[in-house]
């Protein structure tokens, strides 16, 4: 369906009643924030610093509450339906990829419940960022995986493609604002998408990486690429596919909760045994694990790379540890 941009405010208005989040620029860093009633978010940004993985995997999630001294456990209410507007295809793909893990073997109730309650409305990238390399890892600027609805900006109108019933439901409630898609729009879409793909410059050939990584276990490249690492959480916290978490009990007087929060395999403490022994004692092992996890272990387990090429870790690593560059070096070493 097509939505004329002048009807955009009305379209957004129709979504009222559910919690709506969209990218907004706070200072110079764009981030997802709740849209208040009557506000019309403009989707004129590249991508948010912090990925929308928080939609399904909040940075801190209360798993359950209890009173100290009792064993009665109370679960949090998870029932608010939310719509995330303007999710980039890579980030949506990431959510689909992570979902595989949260569904594997034992279901993770929190992630899946949130997925159920959340409608992800995507926006294809007409202007990919400098470090976007989604095509190298199986995605693309208009990829639909993980989305409920995809919007493609065709200058004066949006092309809306429902991917799931949830997406269709959205089109239903806004049907009167939409026009049928005609051939020109389809053509235009193709043009826009292929133009976008062409704008992606920093690509890397990942062929054979997954199979080859185990053989590079002791390769000197790991020391080289990790020497400058600060061991901060930037690359992992901001990565849409990173999903590790820590579980902690927090108390306040007699009130307490058990909650989980993002954790990062780049932190030294992450793997330290209580005895003080650390199986990944230096940044070399930690960096190696991060790359292996994304490009090898995850592929082995779920047949998909746990990197969607969003480029965040490249953009934001304070010391220019550049996954694209690492992959190039891996390729070279193969």
């Amino acid at each position, binding site marked *: 369906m097509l939505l004329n941009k002048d009807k955009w405010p009305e379209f957004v208005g129709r979504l009222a009643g559910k919690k709506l989040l969209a990218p907004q620029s706070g200072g110079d860093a764009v981030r997802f924030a709740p849209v208040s009633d009557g506000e019309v978010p403009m989707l004129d940004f590249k991508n948010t610093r912090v990925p929308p993985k928080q939609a399904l995997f909040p940075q801190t999630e209360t798993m359950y509450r209890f009173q100290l001294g009792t064993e009665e456990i109370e679960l949090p209410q998870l029932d608010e339906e939310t719509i995330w507007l303007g999710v980039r295809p890579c980030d949506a793909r990431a959510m689909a990829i992570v979902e595989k893990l949260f569904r594997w073997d034992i279901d993770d109730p929190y992630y899946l419940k949130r997925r159920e309650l959340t409608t992800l409305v995507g926006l294809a990238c007409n202007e990919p960022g400098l470090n976007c390399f989604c095509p190298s890892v199986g995605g693309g600027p208009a990829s639909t995986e993980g989305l409920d609805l995809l919007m493609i900006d065709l200058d004066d109108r949006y092309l809306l493609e429902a991917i799931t019933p949830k997406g269709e439901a959205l089109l239903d409630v806004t049907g009167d604002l939409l026009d049928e898609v005609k051939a020109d729009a389809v053509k235009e879409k193709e043009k826009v998408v292929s133009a976008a793909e062409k704008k992606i410059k920093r690509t890397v050939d990942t062929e054979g990486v997954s199979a080859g990584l185990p053989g590079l276990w002791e390769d000197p490249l790991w020391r080289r690429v990790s020497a400058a690492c600060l061991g901060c959480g930037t690359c992992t916290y901001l990565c849409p596919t990173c999903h590790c978490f820590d579980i902690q009990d927090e108390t*306040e*007087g007699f*009130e307490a909760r058990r909650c989980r929060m993002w954790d990062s395999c780049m932190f030294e403490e992450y793997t330290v045994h209580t005895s003080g022994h650390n199986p990944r004692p230096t940044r070399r092992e930690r960096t190696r694990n991060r790359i292996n996890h994304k490009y090898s272990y995850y592929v082995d387990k779920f047949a998909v790379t746990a990197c969607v090429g969003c480029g965040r870790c490249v953009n934001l690593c304070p010391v220019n540890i550049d996954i694209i560059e690492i992959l190039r070096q891996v390729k070279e070493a193969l």
Partner: protein
Amino acid sequence: MSADYEPNIVAFLCNWCSYAGADLAGTSRVHYPANVQVIRVMCSGRVNPLYVMNALQQGADGVLVSGCHPGDCHYMEGNFRARRRLGMLKSLMEFVGVDPRRFHMSWVSASEGHKWKEVVEKTVEDAREAGPFEGFRRQQIDW
């Protein structure tokens, strides 16, 4: 802010001067508001400035740290050290937007029961004016 709002104040007192001064206020039956709860430490120098932050976060509306007058410290210089640290903390908190009326420091000697009363009154009054400090509360968050 409700009219009958009673601020909750946590005070850190050094064992040798201020705690003794507060005891003296008691022995002299000096009356003062009941809003101040005292935590006894050996020296005002023991007070980690982050206690102040922590107390505010954990539900205090005001914090008081009190020690011996300069030169009277039982451990010679603990109060000088407290003064520097807490002075810095005060500047920082003000800069971050914590109402300066929420944090006070005082010198109260073992013979100053009356001064203790005044300090308590001032601290309570200031915290009352500043109002409940809900913004920073730990238990309020995402619970």
